[in-house]
């Protein structure tokens, strides 16, 4: 047991039980998995990814490269650092050899997102961050302070003095002040993991196991971002430095003061930086026998004196070359003579790396500072300040001043005693066998690997990283990246500054996929759009299909019916009597203004301005490239007002398209566009008996052809509610589209159904609608077209105005290729066996004489765009795009279906009622 009394911020009055590698162990609230295991003398957590060497913990927080565990209970989570896992009762974990395991079942925990706006975001609640937050709050600004550890204070251990009192008292006081201040949001256990443009920072809050949500991503928009994320200590590379028991000096210190864990009893501290002396003294005070090896020629006088007073031996001018031991370090090999110095803990400090990730994410440049022996932020980023250790400022007094200056005035900074600073040494590695000098212990990558990369001709750190895989592991090279740069520079004989280092990319620490997904799951993944009649469709047992975000009733199967049967029944009902469909999803745009006709003439291929009030016209829209992208009907409501309908999937696109022309090309046109898609619901009543149904519901309307002709509309009322009737048919049958304000659509649906009972009115869905229109050769844009089809290809030259000097797409029709007789035309296909149902999407080829499909490549003539069984024709039929199809009507070609070749005859697109007799009943 290495727990020492009088140390640590854990609750020793309570004991938690957890299981690691199958052994039940205990911990205290406030313990991490790492501290709890070290407290019980467990130094080896797993084995390394490639060589299977034992691995312990090097760091005490997110910088640790190798203390990876797999959580099994309460729910499997892969590849977490033992140093960052809070122990909860019942936790089950195990060490992993570099690869984690995902659960076989879905995670039932929920993950939330929240937007947060503030004047100042401070990242890091160490001394710099706390003071920055305090000063901003005192200035009355909206402040958000996030810090990734469970408690504030950063690397303060409690041995420091701030404003004449122990540092942690100061921390508590500031935290209390912030808690009391209005407009301050202080979040611990919250990691700012990504920094994007314009003060956008993403932070992951760990709300706790079992809480709902389990985690929350805060999307923070800050006027200013103050990065006070501290710095990570850096090891020094020497032989077998990957052995458990080798640890960063700061980590041992953190474990002692945060968790009351003394990580070793006999300690050697190997350093080129003053900061490690504090660790030496602290561990000594806690009862360890400590010896310091300082690679610098002279030990820092003040620290040396304090060590002497404490009886700590300091050896300057020498270094550690290697270690002895099995699963745990037994001795350090010191100096050229590799003198054995017994120890069970070998602390290392090669200096510090500022945690400048959030500065780097938004394009901030890092430059090597020779005095600092590290990369630090260079230059300014608007709206972003980097302070304290993250900026390469390590002396507490200076750190506090920078924090205060970031949001207020340095003069308001709390006081701390100045520290003696002696120059750091630059030491990436000590002499030894490169093959046993591990640079990235998470990847088992050594100095020898770097040497091979350099020998292979690689001169860029990016290449070295990729060749050796250094810095690509779970920790993203927080401790190894700079070492690799330094050692590579040495081997290339170039200054490390000129070589540079690899870029920091988001996220700063790993983030669960589910946390980023947030609540965009299941039905909330994408909006479900429904019509006012939706509940009626559900009640009628409709099967739905997704059309864009809409749920559309596809068909209404009766008990025992499959889709084919239901659709045949629905089709027969419409052709034989009457059916009704909910057409409310159609896009509707109110086009108003004196120049409304001018605009529509620009955008439709045919002439709309000549349409008479009270009449309806079908129109086609093309892009500049001359390809059809939408169609629909246009009602002229008044001289200066049209109602345009679009396809369901294209509604928003068409409105955007029209707005774009009005706003960016023809701003002088006096015309305004308003979306009324949800304002109006459309119920289509179709079939020879539709006139009877309409006549019954709207008794005072003369529904005769004479009074109410095809492609005309008229307004009426029902119970005082305005209703519009339009003689529009997408089925070829006599049909009326009934339009009403959506508030009343459900009732009107009921009313029409009831009125149609005598004629067996049948609700029909999109599938039946598709069959009926296909029998008439009406294309569905997006199904029978694919963005490469012109109106002429569709046989719709009649819908392309010859009168208009120009309209969008017209010029493209004049390209030579558009006149090519071998363009694909929309035609019908009838399988000659009158039985085979061609799969939609099937390709079409010439019918070989021997009836056998030749080996590939086989020239394709086109493809099947629509294919259905027709109740009316009593056979399957299809629509297709076929090269020169209209000139091949009557010819027989072939469609490969599975390993069969199906002979099909090319025909005209209109298969039912070619003379159009039915539309007038």
């Amino acid at each position: 047991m290495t727990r020492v009394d009088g140390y640590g911020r854990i609750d020793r009055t309570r004991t938690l039980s957890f299981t690691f590698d199958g052994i039940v162990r205990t911990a205290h609230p406030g313990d991490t998995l790492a501290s709890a295991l070290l407290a019980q003398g467990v130094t080896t957590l797993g084995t390394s990814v490639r060589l299977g060497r034992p691995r312990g913990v090097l760091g005490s927080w997110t910088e640790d490269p190798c203390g990876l565990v797999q959580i099994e209970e309460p729910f499997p989570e892969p590849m977490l650092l033992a140093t960052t896992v809070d122990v909860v009762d019942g936790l089950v974990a195990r060490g992993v050899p570099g690869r984690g395991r995902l659960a076989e079942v879905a995670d039932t925990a929920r993950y939330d997102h929240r937007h947060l706006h503030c004047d100042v975001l401070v990242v890091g609640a160490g001394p710099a961050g706390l003071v920055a937050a305090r000063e901003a709050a005192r200035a009355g600004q909206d402040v958000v302070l996030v810090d990734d550890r469970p408690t504030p204070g950063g690397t303060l251990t409690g041995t420091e003095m701030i404003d004449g009192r122990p540092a942690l008292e100061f921390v508590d006081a500031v935290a209390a002040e912030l808690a009391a201040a209005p407009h301050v949001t202080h979040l611990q256990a919250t990691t700012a993991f990504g920094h994007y443009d314009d003060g956008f920072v993403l932070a992951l809050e760990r709300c706790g196991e079992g809480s709902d949500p389990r985690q929350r991503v805060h999307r923070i928009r800050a006027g200013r971002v103050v990065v006070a994320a501290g710095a990570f200590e850096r090891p020094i590379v020497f032989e077998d430095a990957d052995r458990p028991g080798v640890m960063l000096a700061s980590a041992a210190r953190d474990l002692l003061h945060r968790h009351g864990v003394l990580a070793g009893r006999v300690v050697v501290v190997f350093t080129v930086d003053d900061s490690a002396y504090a660790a030496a003294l602290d561990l000594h005070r806690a009862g360890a026998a400590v010896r310091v090896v300082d690679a610098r020629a002279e030990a820092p006088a003040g620290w040396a004196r304090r060590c002497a007073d404490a009886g700590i031996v300091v050896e300057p001018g020498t270094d550690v070359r290697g270690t002895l031991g099995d699963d745990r370090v037994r001795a350090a090999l010191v100096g050229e003579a590799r003198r054995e110095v017994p120890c069970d803990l070998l602390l290392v400090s090669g200096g510090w790396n500022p945690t400048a990730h959030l500065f780097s994410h938004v394009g901030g440049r890092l430059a090597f500072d020779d005095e600092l022996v590290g990369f630090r932020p260079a230059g300014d980023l608007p709206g972003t300040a980097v302070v304290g250790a993250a900026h390469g400022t390590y002396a507490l007094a200076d750190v506090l001043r920078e924090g205060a200056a970031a949001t207020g005035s340095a003069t308001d900074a709390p006081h701390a005693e100045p520290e003696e600073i002696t120059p750091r040494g630059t030491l990436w590695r000590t002499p030894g066998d490169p093959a046993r000098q591990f640079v990235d212990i998470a990847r088992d990558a050594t100095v020898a690997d770097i040497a091979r990369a350099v020998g292979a001709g690689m001169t860029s750190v990016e290449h070295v990283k990729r060749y050796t895989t250094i810095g690509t592991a779970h920790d993203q090279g927080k401790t190894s990246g700079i070492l690799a740069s330094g050692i590579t520079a040495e081997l290339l004989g170039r200054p490390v500054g000129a070589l540079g280092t690899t870029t920091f990319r988001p996220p700063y620490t790993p983030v669960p996929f589910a946390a980023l997904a947030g609540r965009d799951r299941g039905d909330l993944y994408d909006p479900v759009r429904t019509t006012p009649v939706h509940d009626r469709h559900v009640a009628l047992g409709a099967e739905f299909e997704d059309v864009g975000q809409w749920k559309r009733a596809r068909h209404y199967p009766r008990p025992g019916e499959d889709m084919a049967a239901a659709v045949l029944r629905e089709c027969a009902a419409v052709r034989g009597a009457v059916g009704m469909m909910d057409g409310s999803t159609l896009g509707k745009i109110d086009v108003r203004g004196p120049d409304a006709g001018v605009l529509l003439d620009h955008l439709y291929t045919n002439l709309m301005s000549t349409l008479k009030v009270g009449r309806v016209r079908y129109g086609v829209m093309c892009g500049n490239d001359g390809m059809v992208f939408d169609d629909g009907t246009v009602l002229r409501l008044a001289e200066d007002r049209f109602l345009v309908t679009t396809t369901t999937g294209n509604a928003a696109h068409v409105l955007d398209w029209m707005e774009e022309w009005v706003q960016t090309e023809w701003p002088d046109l006096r015309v305004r566009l308003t979306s009324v898609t949800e304002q109006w619901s459309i119920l289509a009543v179709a079939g020879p008996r539709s006139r009877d149904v309409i006549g019954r519901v709207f008794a005072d309307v003369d529904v005769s052809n004479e009074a109410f002709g095809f492609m005309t509309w008229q307004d009426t009322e029902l119970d005082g509610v305005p209703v519009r009737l339009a003689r529009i048919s997408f089925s070829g049958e006599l049909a009326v589209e009934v339009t009403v304000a959506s508030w009343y659509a459900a009732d009107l649906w009921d009313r029409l159904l009831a009125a149609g009972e005598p004629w067996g009115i049948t609700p029909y869905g999109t599938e039946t609608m598709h069959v009926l229109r296909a029998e008439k050769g009406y294309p569905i844009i997006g199904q029978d077209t694919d963005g490469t089809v012109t109106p002429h290809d569709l046989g719709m030259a009649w819908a392309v105005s010859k009168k208009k000097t120009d309209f969008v797409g017209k010029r493209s029709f004049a390209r030579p290729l558009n006149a090519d007789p071998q363009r694909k035309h929309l035609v019908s296909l009838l399988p000659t066996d009158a039985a085979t149902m061609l799969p939609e999407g099937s390709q079409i080829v010439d019918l070989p004489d021997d009836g056998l499909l030749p080996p590939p490549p086989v020239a394709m003539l086109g493809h099947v765009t629509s294919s259905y069984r027709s109740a009316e024709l009593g056979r399957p039929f299809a629509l297709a795009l076929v090269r020169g199809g209209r000139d091949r009507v009557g010819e027989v070609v072939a469609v490969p279906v599975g390993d069969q070749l199906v002979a099909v005859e090319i025909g005209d697109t209109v298969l039912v009622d070619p003379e159009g007799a039915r539309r007038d009943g």
Partner: protein
Amino acid sequence: MQLITCPWCGPREETEFRYGGQADLAYPADPSALDDEQWARFVFFRDNPEGAFAERWCHDAGCRRWLRAVRDTRTYVFAETRPYGRTA
């Protein structure tokens, strides 16, 4: 993740906007007078500078007005945004 200043609605998230590519491409006065090459240039060819770029954005989820922006395609920083078609 840009914060784009709509001249009407103020700063809004990039997610509220739709990109419209190069600005100030006028629809030809008389397309029929253009040869295929010239027409193709209008329909398909666009500037693609590395640096300042005058471009169009539409505040889709807000006022639905088009705006003209000048943005640096290297840093993504907007130098200006203003109502489309206005010079000041």
